[in-house]
């Protein structure tokens, strides 16, 4: 249990996927203009992260490693994630209309999101067990959500601010991302100390 809690808090705070690991920067910059869209996108990312971990892990263990096909990991994983996202979209569209309306539009964007493929590779890198991988993906997704939530708030405030002319647009967005990221540096070491 302690391991799981540590994994989740590491994912959210100390090794935040967006602000410390630089995964999923495109949606972080592109979709954080409004709080609603930011939350919808994050929910879809969490969903797809956990789902693709759940599917790729057994395939890696029981197919690729068993038959010594590890060099195919990149191709196999991206195909599985792409197919999975399509499948989820079709199923949601047919059976769970309400969920499709809130998450559906984000799903196709997530296929080529490096955060999803990134979490799959990180789980392998850390050689976690199946349940630990799932929890780690959940933590990473929650971290993504927290970063999106905070940054959407910052950006909504920024809309009404007077920005120096040469920083208008993306440059000021990146610099405010730097400031948000500074705040996460403060969490360094916190997880190791609490869960030791």
């Amino acid at each position: 249990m302690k391991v799981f809690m540590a994994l989740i808090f590491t994912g959210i705070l100390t090794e935040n996927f967006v602000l410390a690991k630089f995964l999923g920067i495109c949606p972080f910059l592109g979709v954080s203009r409004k709080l609603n869209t930011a939350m919808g996108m994050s929910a879809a990312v969490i969903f797809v992260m956990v789902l693709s971990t759940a599917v790729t892990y057994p395939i890696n263990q029981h197919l690729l490693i068993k038959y010594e096909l590890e060099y195919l990991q990149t191709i196999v994983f991206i195909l599985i994630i792409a197919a999975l996202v399509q499948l989820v979209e079709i199923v949601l569209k047919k059976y769970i209309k309400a969920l499709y309306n809130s998450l559906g539009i984000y799903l196709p964007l997530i296929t080529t999101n490096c955060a999803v493929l990134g979490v799959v590779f990180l789980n392998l890198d850390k050689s976690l067990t199946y349940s630990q991988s799932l929890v780690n993906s959940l933590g990473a997704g929650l971290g993504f959500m927290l970063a999106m939530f905070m940054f959407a708030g910052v950006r909504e405030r920024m809309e009404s601010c007077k920005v120096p002319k040469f920083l208008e647009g993306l440059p000021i967005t990146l610099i405010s991302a730097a400031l948000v990221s500074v705040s996460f540096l403060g969490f360094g070491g916190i997880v190791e100390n609490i869960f030791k």
Partner: protein
Amino acid sequence: MAEKKTLWHELTKGFVSENPVLRLVLGTCPTLAISTSVTGSLGMGLSATLVLIGSNFVVSLLRKLIPDKVRIPAYVIIIASFVSIVQMLVKAFAPAIDQQLGIFLPLIVVNCIILGRAEAFAGKNSVLASTIDGIGMGIGFTGAIVLIALIREFFGAGSVAGLQILPESIPPMIIFILPPGGFFVYGILMALANRLAERKDLPPAELQSCEHCPMSVACGGRFVDQADNEKEVKEA
């Protein structure tokens, strides 16, 4: 002569005027993550360039064979194959670089520069032009990421490509090689690039929401509409 001139344009447009990192805002994740050291950035740039040239070549070779509806999955498979090849090469010949790049080496597969160029250029142009476009864009990407790395490594560690430049008595500003420094240097450089673009009457860099986003095929531009006027989409 005219042909030659356009090919020259395909090559050089990626350097500055359509630089993938600073102008088109593509491939931000590896740019920010890897640019803590110059050697790592060079490795990243070269690996991505190899993949880009290979995928642009094959995609434009097959552009008439691939049915329009399944082109994105087809492109992804082509790119993934080249990434696997590059991964094996780097692991075999430059294990130190492989250590530095970590998961960002396989993640070249989802680097939007590569899929973006396949969709925006290689799928529509001749083999020669696409290959040259790949080389130019690759050089532009490598140049931008190495530039960011030069700044970050110099200020953050006092060294360039591992060689100590600043004397030990001057403490380096570690914040530059920490994550916030990445965002900061990238933002400042983009402001400079915008300033230069303004002088040449080019628009400032913006996230290329649909034109360059390969996934706009899948979402049909619904997404940007949704961000701008959410109500309309809900009604539809």
